[in-house]
């Protein structure tokens, strides 16, 4: 199909979809209205389990099984990216060049690293009472480590980042979620039901299993994002493409070197 034909086909289809959208939107409950039956029920259920953050209550209590699926998608995507981005035949690994970083950036990065790390851990730990939780906090923790890449260079990042430990952490976070579910079954309840003592509303120890599941997800997300970024950085910084362009075909070496 030519580009022009494809574009015309898109215009026709987009017009039809736009009409259907508008037809569907006018039948939706009015924007900002008061009719939220599921929301009201979810808030009541969150109160019943002493969870101040109703979003965390939905994710880690009422829909805990769905979140297991979501976490597994994350786990599989990290695994898939690691498998896809491995070193292929013909590629060489070279040690990364030392980068020059100005003193101000270096000092700021080193000063901000512990602050960012602590903020991330805080967001994970307070997921049941403040906006936040394992997913958001995990990403903050993972990006905090990468301040070293900005403030120093890739070598410094690699020294504080034993990748195999993070791979194990990724799997441990995923496993901890399942183990929590199995433990609730052994405690005589449904899979991933909230069986722990609910504690006092609005304190760090409230919400029962939400705290545990938040921590499991936080660990998995933090480790997973570190591994994911490491595989991409590896491609960009360390792995050197073979000198001939693979698609030009034919010439095995050197002769077709069109300034890669």
């Amino acid at each position, binding site marked *: 199909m030519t580009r022009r034909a*494809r574009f015309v086909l898109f215009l026709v289809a987009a017009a039809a979809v736009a009409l259907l959208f508008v037809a569907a939107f006018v039948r939706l409950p009015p924007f900002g209205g008061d009719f939220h039956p599921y*929301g009201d029920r979810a808030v009541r259920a969150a109160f019943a389990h002493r969870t101040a953050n109703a979003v965390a209550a939905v994710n880690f209590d009422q829909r805990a099984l769905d979140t297991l699926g979501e976490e597994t998608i994350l786990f599989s995507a990290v695994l898939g990216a690691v498998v*896809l981005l491995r070193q292929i035949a013909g590629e060489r690994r070279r040690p990364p060049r030392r980068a020059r970083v100005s003193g101000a950036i270096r000092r700021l990065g080193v000063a901000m690293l512990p602050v960012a790390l602590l903020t991330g851990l805080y967001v994970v730990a307070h997921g049941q009472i403040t906006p936040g939780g394992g997913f958001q906090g995990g990403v903050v923790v993972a990006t905090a480590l990468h301040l070293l890449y900005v403030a120093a260079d890739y070598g410094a990042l690699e020294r504080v980042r034993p990748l195999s430990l993070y791979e194990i952490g990724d799997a441990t976070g995923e496993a901890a979620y399942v183990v929590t579910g199995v433990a609730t079954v052994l405690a005589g309840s449904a899979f991933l039901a909230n069986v722990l003592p609910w504690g006092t509303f609005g304190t760090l120890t409230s919400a029962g299993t939400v705290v545990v599941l938040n921590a499991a997800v936080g660990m998995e997300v933090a480790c997973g994002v570190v591994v994911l970024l490491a595989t991409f950085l590896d491609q960009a910084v360390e792995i050197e493409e073979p000198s001939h362009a693979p698609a030009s075909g034919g010439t095995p070496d050197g002769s077709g070197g069109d300034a890669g």
Partner: protein
Amino acid sequence: MTLLPYLVAGWLFLIGVYGIVVSRDLIHTVGCLSVTQSSTYVLLLAVGYRDGGTAPVYADVPKDARVVDPVVQALTLTDVVVGATVTALLLALVIQLHKRHGTVDPDQLSALKG
């Protein structure tokens, strides 16, 4: 106009698909897919909005406070996580494609290669 937030979601969806259709670079295509997906965030949050509502977090608001719908917010969180991981996986695929075929233009990727 109460329809506007929904229309914004629809517009984002279509403009993202438009980008995918006319794309000449797979990195750009993946970016357009992210735009398409962001329409679902807008739609979900628009569905859950309640006039004058605050965040459904009761740590520092009274228990009878008017809040927006926490269910769609939780769904949006799921959506963001899945979107980010799918984007990462697709970008990894694009890198591999570039290694094998030496191009990221979808129109030039016609031959099968092992």
